[in-house]
């Protein structure tokens, strides 16, 4: 059984026999399938902003599952530092699920906001935005994935695109803002 999402990277640690096999998906098939989903959303919702929202929500639902897949394959055992976590997403996470790596840059002074810069983005091969869709964040699903995955490791975040090649920028830049790290609390009330 497969989630069918982006498992096309080569094995991260091919030498490690205990690592479960990472299924690979043909890159073109993946790109075209994603394109078909976005196209269908545009047809269904007829509103670019609504499609952006839908993509983000879809990504979120992928993210809250993907995190366990990621943790089990990467052997990452703790995610407490936001800085470290951002690096892991850029170097290990993107590599594992999209087959590319991102660069972490532009930290703010408090260390709660940074950018992930993607020079190579396999989602947008063959894509051009028509005049009517200039407000579309075509890759918004990725923002949702990261937001969902981080929420599962107790980091509430806000993730959005600030530069997008499809909008004429020179690269893809995603802004990651840490809102709150949620502590572990005893989940039951005393009178339950």
């Amino acid at each position, binding site marked *: 059984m497969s989630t069918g999402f982006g498992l096309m990277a080569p094995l991260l640690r091919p030498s490690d026999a205990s690592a*479960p096999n990472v299924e690979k998906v043909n890159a073109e098939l993946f790109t075209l399938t994603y394109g078909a989903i976005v196209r269908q959303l545009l047809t269904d919702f007829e509103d670019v902003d609504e499609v952006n929202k839908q993509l983000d929500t879809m990504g979120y639902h992928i993210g809250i599952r993907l995190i*366990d*897949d990621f943790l089990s394959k990467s052997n990452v055992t703790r995610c*407490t530092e936001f800085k470290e976590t951002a690096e892991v997403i850029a170097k290990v996470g993107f590599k594992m699920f999209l087959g590319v790596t991102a660069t972490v840059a532009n930290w703010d002074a408090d260390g709660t906001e940074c950018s992930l810069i993607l020079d190579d983005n396999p989602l947008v091969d063959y894509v051009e935005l028509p005049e009517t869709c200039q407000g579309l964040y075509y890759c918004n699903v990725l923002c949702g994935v990261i937001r969902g995955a981080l929420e599962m490791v107790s980091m509430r975040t806000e993730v959005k695109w600030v530069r997008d090649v499809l909008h004429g920028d020179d690269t893809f830049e995603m802004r990651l803002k840490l809102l709150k790290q949620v502590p*572990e609390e005893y989940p039951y009330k005393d009178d339950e």
Partner: protein
Amino acid sequence: MAAPGRMRCMYIFNRNGVCLHYHVWYRPLTTLSPQQDQKLMFGLLFSLRSFTVKMDPTSNNKGHLGVPQLPGQGCSFHAFTTNTYKLSLLETPSGIKIVLVTDPGMGDLREALRYIYSNIYVEYVIKNPLYVPGEHFRCELFNAALDQYVKTLK
């Protein structure tokens, strides 16, 4: 019930204390309702962890007992043994706790718990499109794979 192997039972919890799965191999005595039993187990893990952090001789950043900690912060325990059973625990950064209760002579189960998480829980539950994250699951494939795997544990 069949002749007892070395396994007693297994619990999987998420961060919110929901028991996602309870699996029993051999448990001759059950006095509580499943809900009470699972809640007590989660409470045991939660309290024991806050005690281990408080008593850590290597760290001076302990805070006060019972004060919420960030996940992964501070030390944690991976097993304890009594004269009648051994409890082994795996906790992931995503808040999943896998608890395996076995006979007290069982060796180190950290690798085994890791295997159950990676190759059984993630493969058969997380990747199951019909599973709603955060809810209790019942999954034949998961049970079969788990039963198969624990037979290999010595």
